């Protein structure tokens, strides 16, 4: 959802009556306590919404809502603080892990997570990402890799695949001129400050279940005080990929996942 749309939509925010949608007979399953009732602004079929729900479910299941502080990025998830029913801080573009560091250092007994896009985490915020991980801050970093700049309207991201068309690579990403898609998670996994590192996706029910497990680990490991938990979620951006949600999930499976393979890159107790 680009910034202009957000602006337009914010006028309608109050028009959507929650009661008109959430009548009892319509309820198939409930919202987690850790999601607010604010309707999300994400485009239909976007992975951000699923990722939000999983994080909220985990916080509910761990019973840590009152002890959790989240950090929102600049990117499509900039309004994450409207959706997560926990205390939230909205960071400058790329700086979420530094903001999370500041919070965790003064409140070491709280659960702190940052939620960041690929532009945020792997381009403008690369320095903060690497050093936060290298210091082994006891936080969970959720990395939403959709291979594109969603919020600003579909420009090239550091994770954009070779040959992939974006508004700033109209002829496809030419790696000779624009560099290679950055596997930052593989880099991160090398750092001794990182305790747990995993790559998941939310494009199929099986992947969703695995993603939830990874997020659960990420929160749970904070109790051990052993360093960063880093969870990459490979997601879609139907709007800027110019596909339907179904097409985008298929494209993700066929193109993104071969380059960004799923699985644990670092699992405590396992030889990596």
């Amino acid at each position, binding site marked *: 959802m680009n*910034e202009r749309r*957000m*602006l337009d939509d*914010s*006028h309608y925010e109050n028009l959507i009556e929650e009661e008109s949608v959430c009548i009892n007979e319509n309820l198939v399953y409930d919202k987690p306590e850790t999601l607010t009732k604010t309707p999300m602004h994400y485009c239909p079929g976007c992975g951000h919404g699923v990722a939000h729900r999983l994080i909220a479910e985990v916080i509910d299941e761990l019973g840590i*809502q*009152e*002890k*959790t*502080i989240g*950090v*929102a990025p600049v990117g499509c998830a*900039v*309004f994450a*603080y409207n959706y997560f*029913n*926990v*205390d*939230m*801080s*909205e*960071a*400058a573009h790329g*700086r979420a892990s*530094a*903001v*999370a*560091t*500041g*919070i965790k*250092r*003064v*409140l070491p007994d*709280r659960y702190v997570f940052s939620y960041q896009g690929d532009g945020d985490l792997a381009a403008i915020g690369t*320095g*903060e990402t690497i*050093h936060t991980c290298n210091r082994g801050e006891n936080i969970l970093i959720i990395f939403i890799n959709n291979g594109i700049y969603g919020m600003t309207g579909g420009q090239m991201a550091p994770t954009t695949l070779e040959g992939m068309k974006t508004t700033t690579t109209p002829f496809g990403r030419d790696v000779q001129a624009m560099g290679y898609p950055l596997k930052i998670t593989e880099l991160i996994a090398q750092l001794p400050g990182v305790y747990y590192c995993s790559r998941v996706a939310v494009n199929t029910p099986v992947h969703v279940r695995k993603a939830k497990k990874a997020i659960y680990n990420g929160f749970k490991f904070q109790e051990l005080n052993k360093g960063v938990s880093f969870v990459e979620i490979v997601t879609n951006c139907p709007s800027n990929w110019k596909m339907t949600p179904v097409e985008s999930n298929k494209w993700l499976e066929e193109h993104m996942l071969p380059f960004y393979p799923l699985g644990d890159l670092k699992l405590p107790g396992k030889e990596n």
Partner: protein
Amino acid sequence: MKELKLMKGNEALAEAAIRAGCDAYFGYPITPQSEVLEYLAKEAYARTGMVVLQAESEIASINMIYGAAGTGKKVMTSSSSPGISLMQEGISYIACAELPCLIVNVVRAGPGLGTIQPAQSDYFQAVKGGGHGDYKLIVLAPSTIQEMVDHTKLGFELAFKWRNPVMILTDGALGQMMEKVELFPQTERKFELLPWATTGKTKDRGRSIITSLYIQPEVMQEKNLHLQKKYKSIEREEIRFEKYKCDDAEVVLLAFGLVARICKKAADLAREKGIKAGVFRPITLFPFPYEEVNTLADSSRIFLTVEMNAGQMLEDIRLAVNGKIQVDFTGRMGGIIPTPEEILEKIIEINEGVPA
């Protein structure tokens, strides 16, 4: 009993931060202020449990400050000019999110990498915004090492009173030189759960959200109006200045920080020569003592602004005086400190040129 100590400016400031009950410091080394981080790294944790962290850059430091200040803790950073330039986006966010914190700029001469020698050339950056958007820092300008100590304590008080970032604008000379200071006793570090802070949402309060995003123009304008109203209140309540021999002065030297001390010496030398000179020193650069400067212009003949820059506070003095009398300027740039003698020469030169 008074606790007197001979201390280097940067170390005195760091010591004052510990004693003021500071909870956390995030910073990155740069001359001439690295002693702040070094002193804290050695002293702070063992004595009070204060967090001291060397960040990977000034951008990281200021964003760590943003996060930590959002929890309602007492936090600070320090740097010198190029580092403060890097922090500007973060400072703008902090000002908009209305987070209390203390930022120290031990100024060195610029532009660019410049030199490590002292200057006052970041006045505009500190006082007129620096980062993007309409915001103000409360800016304190110490002129002695004693004031470096006192302003650290005062800075935290003002930051929390107004929920606004406070900057101490000092320079490389004050940071590096040694003077006798009286230290205040240790304040206990205590953690208060503030209703607006991100400490974890409890049942008895709504969610705390720290943000500077107001995407609807009407709401953004409201936020701006609120900030401007706060700045007006700060202007009413927090102006601080010092007058030195101004009562009968025909020639008034206007200077802040270290230069004001040199001007006092120059004024004394002028008086020995039969020229009635005095010094007006703004202590708060924002809020600026416009009215006091304007009133002073009624009883004096000559205003001479002296700065270690090309004439930055000069613009505020001229605004305050509003054409009532002539305002002259003398200054040094590039890291050179003006001497009392050269200021005296300038006083004599102007005094002869301006009819009584």
